[in-house]
């Protein structure tokens, strides 16, 4: 009896002690909180989404097969129609095939283009690094349809599409084939260019911090160039390559504006464009099946990523020891490479900006004899007859501007800080269940198509009393952009050798001070990019907020969506305002902190 009591007490105490020990570690607390909070906000919308694919919605009663059923009733009709009916090819298999092909191609383009530029900037003595580094990220700052629209205006010729001449035709009389302007190829190229900065930031971040001693040691040991790349460089860059692939593939799978813009006349449809069509008709069941497949694809890649990163040993590249970078000498190629990259950057970064600026100055788009400043500075309604004043004097613009800035800043701070904390905890507790769960849950929002996520948050907003509030926008934005921050946080922390924090731990430095004084400063540039990416993405996000922002919470992009369909010039001016704002913030942050989106790479 006595023995039993002793063992019970010690059992309880053991449990108490182990719980206490567990929670004395900040990393565990962070992980536990993250898993609960993120679990709720990511799994719950998914449950909603899945249950919606097997229920009858009001507008679906239009289908003869569903007539007589009640709203909310269980049905397999949507799944049958999408996967097995005679329309499944048109609505599902064909868009799925197109979406996968487009995403694969755009991932390859982004990795190849961004990766090469990152390598040239971090590892070689190429010219004009600073300029390239700052201009290269422009396409990511611009809403993706901007580049799509520019692509169309540039390559369009009278024999295809809208029947008008683009720049290339007007200047040189050159005609490209229709497949280069509309359909799979241009969609993949434009998305690849748009997301190349991802590859540049992620791959460049690793390359920059990589200690060249590793490669030099291999050279001393007479390893061949190929062997060095295969056994040293690639394994170190691999997590970043996989992360990039994961990010670009998932983004492209849920890209809507580009295929919508360039799919056009050729009937090129992808999952998102078809999904939007279903959602617009209120046929949610069928629309959400596509969303589920988009998520599934993301999960598969996430699994692959997990498998690959789980298998490898840890590579810490930032240690307490000295590190140095020796640049590869390119000789005459340093001018040629710089020239080619600058030309490409100008084409997809600067030229679109110039054309947008010019278009916002024309009464008749493309007719430069009708120049006017009214779309910018008119104090009364412009001559378009739409009641909108010049951009600077339009009250809607300023309300939206204030909201967008505030929202982007809030999302950036929330996502960025959570990202660092999760990155820290995941790296500390690598391999544990909680770390894996937090890592994956922090990434899940990325796989949720923005539009579906917006709808899910609208649905949970009602019961929580958050409908139409700024808080709901900030919540959905903070969670949606967490993956950027957590990825860069985890990448940065994995590089960091444990000995650095341990040194501070030995002299009893408290946790928060270790974070603020030791860890953050070392990986500052990567962490700050974890703040800037959400900010940038949020500034130009549309589909996520389109259902949630209205009236007093109108944003620049939702206003732009409204204007775009009808008032091209005012929309062009507004678009330019968005881009300039992001650039200005980027510049300010750069001046104040020395970091910027591209700074993760250096130059």
């Amino acid at each position, binding site marked *: 009896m006595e023995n039993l009591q002793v063992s019970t007490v010690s059992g309880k105490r053991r449990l108490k002690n182990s719980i206490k020990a567990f929670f004395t570690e900040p990393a565990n607390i962070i992980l536990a909180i993250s*898993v609960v909070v993120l*679990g*709720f906000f990511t*799994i*719950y919308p998914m*449950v*909603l989404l899945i*249950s919606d694919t097997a229920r009858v919605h*009001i*507008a679906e*009663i*239009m289908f*003869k097969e569903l007539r007589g059923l009640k*709203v*909310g009733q269980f049905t397999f009709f949507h799944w049958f129609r999408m996967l097995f009916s005679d*329309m499944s090819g*048109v609505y599902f298999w*064909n868009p799925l095939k197109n979406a996968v092909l487009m995403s694969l191609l755009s991932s390859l383009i982004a990795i190849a283009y961004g990766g090469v530029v990152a390598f040239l900037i971090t590892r070689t003595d190429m010219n004009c690094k600073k300029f390239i580094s700052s201009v290269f990220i422009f396409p990511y700052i611009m809403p993706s349809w901007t580049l799509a629209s520019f692509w169309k205006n540039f390559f369009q010729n009278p024999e*295809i*599409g*809208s*029947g*008008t001449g683009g720049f290339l035709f007007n200047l040189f009389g050159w005609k490209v084939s229709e497949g280069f302007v*509309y359909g799979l190829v241009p969609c993949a190229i434009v998305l690849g260019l748009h997301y190349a900065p991802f590859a540049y930031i992620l791959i460049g971040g690793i390359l920059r911090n990589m200690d060249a001693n590793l490669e030099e040691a291999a050279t001393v040991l007479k390893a061949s160039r190929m062997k060095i790349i295969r056994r040293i460089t690639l394994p170190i860059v691999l997590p970043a390559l996989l992360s990039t692939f994961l990010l670009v593939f998932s983004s492209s799978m849920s890209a809507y504006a580009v295929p*919508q*813009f360039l799919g*056009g*006349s050729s*009937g*090129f*449809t992808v999952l998102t464009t078809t999904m939007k*069509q279903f*959602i*617009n*008709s*209120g046929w949610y069941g069928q629309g959400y099946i596509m969303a589920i497949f988009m998520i599934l694809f993301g999960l598969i890649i996430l699994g692959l990523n997990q498998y690959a990163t789980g298998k490898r040993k840890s590579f810490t590249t930032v240690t307490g020891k000295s590190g140095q970078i020796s640049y590869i000498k390119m000789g005459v190629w340093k001018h040629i490479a710089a020239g080619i990259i600058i030309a490409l950057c100008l084409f997809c970064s600067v030229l679109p900006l110039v054309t947008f600026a010019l278009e916002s100055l024309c009464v*008749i788009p493309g007719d430069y004899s009708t120049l006017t400043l009214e779309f910018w500075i008119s104090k009364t309604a412009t*001559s*378009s*007859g*739409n*009641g909108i004043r010049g951009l600077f004097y339009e009250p809607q613009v300023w309300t939206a501007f204030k909201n967008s800035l505030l929202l982007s800043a809030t999302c950036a701070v929330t996502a960025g800080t959570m990202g660092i904390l999760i990155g820290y905890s995941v790296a500390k507790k690598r391999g544990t*269940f909680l770390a894996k*769960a937090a890592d994956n849950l922090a990434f899940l929002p990325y796989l949720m198509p923005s539009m579906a996520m917006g709808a899910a948050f609208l*649905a*949970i*907003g*009602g*019961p929580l*009393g958050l*409908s139409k509030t700024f808080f709901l926008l900030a919540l959905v934005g903070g969670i949606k952009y967490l993956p950027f921050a957590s990825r860069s946080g985890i990448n940065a922390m994995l590089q960091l050798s444990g000995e650095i924090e341990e040194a501070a731990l030995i002299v009893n430095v408290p946790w928060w001070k270790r974070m603020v004084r030791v860890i953050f400063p070392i990986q500052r540039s990567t962490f700050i990019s974890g703040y800037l990416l959400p900010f940038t993405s949020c500034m130009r996000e549309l589909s996520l907020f389109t*259902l949630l922002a*209205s*009236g*007093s919470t*109108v944003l620049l992009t939702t206003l732009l969506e*409204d204007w775009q*369909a*009808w008032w*091209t010039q005012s929309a062009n001016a507004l678009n330019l305002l968005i881009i300039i704002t992001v650039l200005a913030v980027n510049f300010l942050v750069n001046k104040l902190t020395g970091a910027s989106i591209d700074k993760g790479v250096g130059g």
Partner: protein
Amino acid sequence: MKKLLCMLLVLSMALLAFTACGGDNGKDATIYEKAQEMTWDELFELAKAETGDFNAYGNTSRIKDAMTAFVAKYGAELGLSDSNAVGTKMSDSEIYTTIESEYQSAGNSKGASMVMIQDGATLLTYINGTEYFANYVPKAYADKLDKSAVTPLVQQYINKLIMWNNVGSDSAVITNVWQLTEASMKGKVYFKSPKNEQVNMNFLIMCTSKEWSDKLADAYKAYFGKNIELGTYKNAGYKWVAEFLNNANFSINSDTTIAGDLSKPENTGKAGLFVLSKLRDKSVVSDNLTVAAFADGVAPFSGFMYPMYCQIAQKGPRPYTAMLFIEYLMTEEGFQPWGKSIGAYSSNPALAALEGDQPLSFWMEKLVFEDPQYIMDNKAEITDFVNKIIG
């Protein structure tokens, strides 16, 4: 670990059930019937007693201006200002999703009290299957409106017309819609893809109705001089839709850009089907465009007309203010935000057409009008038919 996942799932399911239950139902339906018999002044007294915000969502950006004018005139007495009375542009599907969430939320002091909806067929399914909306016809207009404009209440109509580029030629590019299906017009007819524009889809659906397929069959005979051979098509409407879509050019996704591009001199001989109001846009060289209906017309139709419906949101905080606002929108002053440009026509027959435009009665003869009931019954089937053709 499994427990944790299970707990999360249970939590999610519980919340799901919570949202599915929703709040209480809409208001007592009789208040709308009673209100139908009330005068403006009686409603005004009731509206004064209302509290909460007055929000209106509409699939038209000019709802903002209409609301601003309404607030400027009556705001002081009704306790409304620019901060608590807002008109917001939303697409139909955004309106439904938002109203659904507002309807289910317990307190709805910031929700919409009225909406303006474009797609009648979907609206009918909501009217039949939910209590989100209530129809209200102001007493002063009950006898004046056309029967087809009463349930659901049509506030205005907007037309999309066949137009062509007339540069270098005075003769009509087409006089019969079957010409749009000929090989010579391949890729030369601009039409915003029905995938992205529901009203365009509705027009195609209407073409398959008995009335319009008969007229299309007659027009076929008039143009080709022989009876139509249907082959596998159900009727002449299906055949025309299929052949029209094969020729249509969907590469432009905005009616403004369609109008602008079509009016460029190099596009002579090409045609388009888009909103008339674009002719007044400075970015369009309107002299280069001929409106078929204003020339000799096209057999059997010169374009189509779609309505904009007004409904009261049953769960909205200010139903009586919403009724006043709807009545205000039927007046000349309330219609001004739309009525100042061509191509929009109030359902109130007392309002005259703008100079250079024609009244509603003129268009009734020449255009395909929407029948929401027919569209609702056939939308699923014909949407499939259209998508099979355009991919």
